[in-house]
Each structure stands twice: as structure tokens, then as C-alpha cells.
């Protein structure tokens, strides 16, 4: 603590010039495009008003700011292997997300970050890789899939198990077909409710795990979706023999700062914003079994 004290100039804050920039102050980004993906889900493409494009790792998130309305943590959904606009895929569920998806092209938003841990999909090189997504949970997994596809030959069997509410809620439909057809990804989709026209599967995404055909002892699993879904999927994966430390979940908690200072995202000893959002099931399993922890 004494290192902060400036003995020569008591009361002066000369040491402050050496401090890092304030992580709570957003950088301005301009909306270059808003794409409607489904009834309630939109993808925003953002470009910095000044300065270079944001570098990030698959699985990280930013704090997105609709000025005067508020700020929310949103996972990055873009392709980290190719320079381009910053992409976020956002569901219209609250005041801030609604302000974000209805902001006009050219409007300026605030961006802080990127923050948090990554999927580190390269840990699956030489292994089977299983992606399990529930709903909007496909968006945070997309950067890891793009990273894998860019080096597809380094991975063995690659499976994407994806559960959506209805066929109309399926995200990135064209890409799902391309990943299956052009990149050797086994894509299995199931929905909670399907009309007569739906010829695919109906049911929980956990039911897809047993027939996914991966080698449990040599598999990396990346899971993102509602917490209850992730808990059951992680149990299904580890029951089949995937080691707990090779099952990774992306956790969602209330976040006001994204940098481990505000305390909102705590899960016992974890700050989900800096220790996560991507965390191994080996660390989460004892914490997810207690209600309201």
C-alpha cells in the first residue's frame, strides 16, 4: 500500500499517470449493420469510431452500452480468425437489449472489453470435439466453431448438438448446413416444439448426447445454454466418460463491471466475469448442485 504514497508531494496524485486506463469507460463503436436472425434475435456488426478493430478470443464477452439506457454483458459471436466488424448476437429480452437491436445503422454504441476466459478450442486438437448449444447459447460457441473450422484437419470427429425452442428459432441456419456439408461437422438439431412441417427431432438436447458417436476418453466438450440445460448436458457427458475438466461451460451471471470489481457475478469463490465465463465442469460441478448459490 505504501507504493501508492507519493512522499515528495503529499496529497498529489502523481503516481496516477502510471495507472492503466479506466476499464469502466466505454469506447465508441458505430453500428455498420443489424441483421435479423430470428423473430427475436439480431446480430449487430460494430466498427470502432477510432482506433483498431478489437482483438478477442472465442468465448469472451464485451459490455455493450446503449447510451443513457444501460449496459449488458454480451458474448462475441463473430469469427476471431478473420479481421472484420465486431459481431454480437442479441436476443430482445430486456430494456437494454431492445435499445441495442433497435438502434439505427450508424448509431454509436459503447463497448468495453473484451473480458473473460476463452473456450480454448485448440485443447481439442487431436481429439473429438463436441459442441452442445441451447437456444441463444449457439452464438457464444460460434467463434470457437469458426476457429476449429479454420484448422479442421487438426481435429477428429466434430459434433454440434443444438436445441432450439421451435424451428423458427434456429439460429445461423445457412451456416449450420455449410458446417455440415463443407466442413465435416456432424450437426444434430432438436426443437422443443415442432409444427407438422418440421421433420427433424423433437426433444431435449441431452437426448442427442448418447448417439453423437464421440470417443468420451478423447473428447473436448464445449457447452453453452440455460444453466439447467448445461447441468444436465454436463452430467450426460461425464456419465459417458468425458473427464470433468474437458467439459467446459459458459456461465451467465449479473455483471455490472465485467472486470471483477462490482461483485455481482460471484459464484462462491469465482468471479464469473474474470474467472469465467468459460469454466471447466470440474470447478463448477460442486457449485451448481446447490440451489440459489
Amino acid at each position, binding site marked *: 500500500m505504501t507504493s501508492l504514497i507519493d512522499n515528495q508531494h503529499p496529497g498529489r496524485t502523481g503516481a496516477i499517470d502510471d495507472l492503466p486506463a479506466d476499464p469502466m469507460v466505454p469506447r*465508441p463503436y458505430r453500428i455498420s449493420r443489424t441483421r435479423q436472425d430470428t423473430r427475436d434475435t439480431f446480430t449487430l456488426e460494430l466498427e470502432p469510431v477510432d482506433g483498431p478493430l478489437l482483438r478477442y478470443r472465442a468465448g469472451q464477452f464485451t459490455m455493450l452500452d446503449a447510451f443513457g439506457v444501460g449496459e449488458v454483458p454480451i458474448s462475441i459471436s463473430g469469427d476471431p480468425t478473420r479481421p472484420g466488424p465486431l459481431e454480437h448476437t442479441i436476443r430482445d429480452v430486456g430494456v437494454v437489449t431492445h435499445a441495442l437491436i433497435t438502434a439505427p445503422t450508424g448509431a454509436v454504441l459503447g463497448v468495453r472489453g473484451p473480458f473473460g476466459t476463452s473456450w480454448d478450442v485448440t485443447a481439442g486438437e487431436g481429439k473429438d470435439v463436441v459442441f452442445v448449444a441451447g437456444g441463444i447459447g449457439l452464438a457464444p460457441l460460434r467463434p470457437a466453431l469458426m476457429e476449429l473450422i479454420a484448422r479442421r484437419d487438426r481435429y477428429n470427429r466434430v459434433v454440434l448438438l443444438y436445441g432450439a425452442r421451435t424451428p423458427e428459432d434456429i439460429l445461423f441456419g445457412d451456416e449450420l448446413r455449410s458446417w455440415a456439408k463443407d466442413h465435416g461437422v456432424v450437426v444434430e438439431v432438436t426443437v422443443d416444439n415442432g409444427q407438422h412441417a418440421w421433420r427433424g427431432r423433437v426433444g431435449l438436447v441431452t437426448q442427442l448426447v448418447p448417439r453423437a458417436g464421440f470417443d468420451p476418453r478423447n473428447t473436448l466438450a464445449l457447452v453453452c445454454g440455460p444453466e439447467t440445460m448445461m447441468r444436465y448436458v454436463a452430467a450426460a457427458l461425464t456419465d459417458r466418460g468425458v473427464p470433468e475438466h474437458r467439459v467446459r461451460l459458459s456461465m451467465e451471471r449479473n455483471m455490472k463491471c465485467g472486470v471483477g470489481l462490482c461483485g455481482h457475478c460471484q459464484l462462491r469463490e469465482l468471479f464469473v466475469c474474470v474467472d469465467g465465463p468459460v469454466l471447466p465442469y470440474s470447478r463448477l460441478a460442486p457449485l451448481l448442485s446447490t440451489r440459489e448459490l
Partner: protein
Amino acid sequence: MADEARLIDLDGLQGLIDALSARGYTVIGPTVRDGAIVNAPVHGVDDLPRGWGDEQDAAHYRLRRRGDDAVFGFAAGAQSVKPVVFPAHELIWRGRRTGTEFTVNDRDADGPVAGPPPPYALLGVRSCDLHALAIHDTVLLGRGYTDTRYAERRAGSFVVAVTCTDPGGTCFCASMRTGPHPDGGFDLALTELMDDGPHRFLVEVGTPRGADVLADVATAPAPESDVVEAEAIAVEAASRMGRTLDTDGLKDVLYASADSPRWDDVASRCLACTNCTLVCPTCFCTSVEDVADLTGDVAERRRVWDSCFNEDFSYIHGGSIRTETRSRYRQWITHKLAAWVDQFGTSGCVGCGRCITWCPAAIDITAEAAALRWTPQPAAAGS
């Protein structure tokens, strides 16, 4: 340290306040306000709570006349110095919209100033609160990201610590090994000596900056007998604390208590009023508030204290994680006494006792920790 110790009298204490003021500090010290000891700007010895003591117990705080002239003869005041270096409301940035442009300034010249201007000299900081400051330094400055506003206030602050000579009924710093004698983190430390001799203060110097300020004050060398007396006062004070907290294996106790029936018991009393987190010198949780003017062209974000006892503290789309009071009390005490150790290497509790004193329902962290230690766990109940 003993051979460097000095003595000052009440005039010397006035001289110290004057010397700090002359160097541009706003001197913040204990005052009597609204029937409590409250930190506020002080200009002289007459502003201090001379002759005032307090009595504290669970949900009980009263000032009392001591019957002597002691200036620091009370225990932990209503607040630590937390609100000075980490204000409850603070502007983070202000932005202005022009057309589709939006510019953000983190240091807007006409931003609201919270409280008196820095730099601060913090007078009369107790050992428990010194340890709390050190904890905040770790939490807010010692990790990957820095709270730049705290850093600024903290770096400029001058600390005059005081040995607690008359601890209160809710004090337990002795069992937390955080007091009552200041063991570091101060520029100067005082111990008030109220024996048959003249009213005087033993002064220990903690930093060169402290020595520099003290050089402007009329002091006398401290005889060895006064150094011994100051030590004896601290030892005697340690033996008179109203509470104890057994920290042995406490982290494991709390982690194993996640499903304890005790949470229902405490929740039947807890009002989730957030008083404990507001008076706690180490609680650091904050939220942000966004404010826009009527045109929407000027927007600002403020950081405000928050509490894990608020239901929307854990809100995510679909609902709050911790909907029940039992879950929120569990979060608070488990974080404070257990998860804190994993996160920051120390307990989050410094034994100041404020959460006990200011709880309207008289919930006692030391009693709850002890009860959890002796409540059979559901999983272990059958074995």
C-alpha cells in the same frame, strides 16, 4: 520503533491537525453527530468527541459521557473511512450526443463532487479499519483491473491511526488478529494515555511522510514507561472485547454448510435491509446507474454501493439467482468469511462489529458462524 516514539499533548494534537491542513489535506476525523460518532471534516481538537464514549451491543448503539477528557475513548463509529475513499455515489463518465455521434468523458469538469475535496488526512483510524483499507487495496487495486478513482483517493490519503483503548460490546478484532494496536498501514499512529499524568498521546511513525509532518509539530521524547503503558493498554483492551470469532477451519465449515438448516433460522430474523453491508468496512459490491437528461443528449453513468441482500443484485434475464433471504444471507456470510480467503488470501471480516451493532434484528455474525459450526449438516446428519 520504541526509540523513535514521541509524545504530544492536546496542543500537539491541534498542531498535527494544523500541519495537515497547511499541507492541503482535508482532515477527516471523528465527530459527534446525530447521536453517533461520525467521520466528518475537522479543524481542531474541539471538533473531536472529547469526553464521549459509546455502548454497543447487537442492534444497540448509544453515546455516553465518559466522565473523563478522552478524545478517542469510543469504539468503531457508525462508518469506517470507506465512504471517504470509496464514496457511495460516484460519477464514472458523462457522455454527450451530437447527431449520431456520442463522446464520452471520464473526467467531466462539471461533474458532481461527492463530499469534501481530496486529498484527505484520515484522523483516528482504528486498527480494524486499517486492515479493511488494506483489504480494499487488494480488492480494488491489487488484481487484474484497477478502480482508478479509488486509486486516486487512496494514494493521496494520509493516515493517522489510533489504538483502541475502550473497545465496544460488538468488537472482536482481537480474535481476527486485526487489532486493537495498529501494526502497519499508517503514516502516524497515536495511543491516548489517560493516567495520573498529563493527558498525552504516544506517537509512532509509520512512514517518512509521517515523520515529515510530525517534524512540524511540538513533540517530546517518549519515556520507555509510556511505551510500555501504551502496549499494556492495547493488551488490556484486547481482553475486554465483547465478542470472539473462531476462525479455525471456518472456510471449510461454511463451504460445507451450503444446505444447512441454519439458513432458514437466520432468514426468519433477517430483514434483508442491507444495513450490514452498508456499514461493513470491506463490503465493496457496487452497481451502476444510468441517468439521461430529458433530451437524451446528455447521459451519465454513476457507480453506487450495492448489496448482495437486494433481490435484483443477482438478476439475470428470467429472474434472480438468489430469490430467498436465506440464499442472500448465505452469500454474504460465506463470501465474507470463506470465499474471501480463496479470492484475496485473507478473511473479509476485520472484527469491527458494525454489522452486529447496526443490524435492526440483532443478527450476530459471530453467533451465526458458531451456530453453523455446530449445526449438523443434512448430508452428515445420518452418519
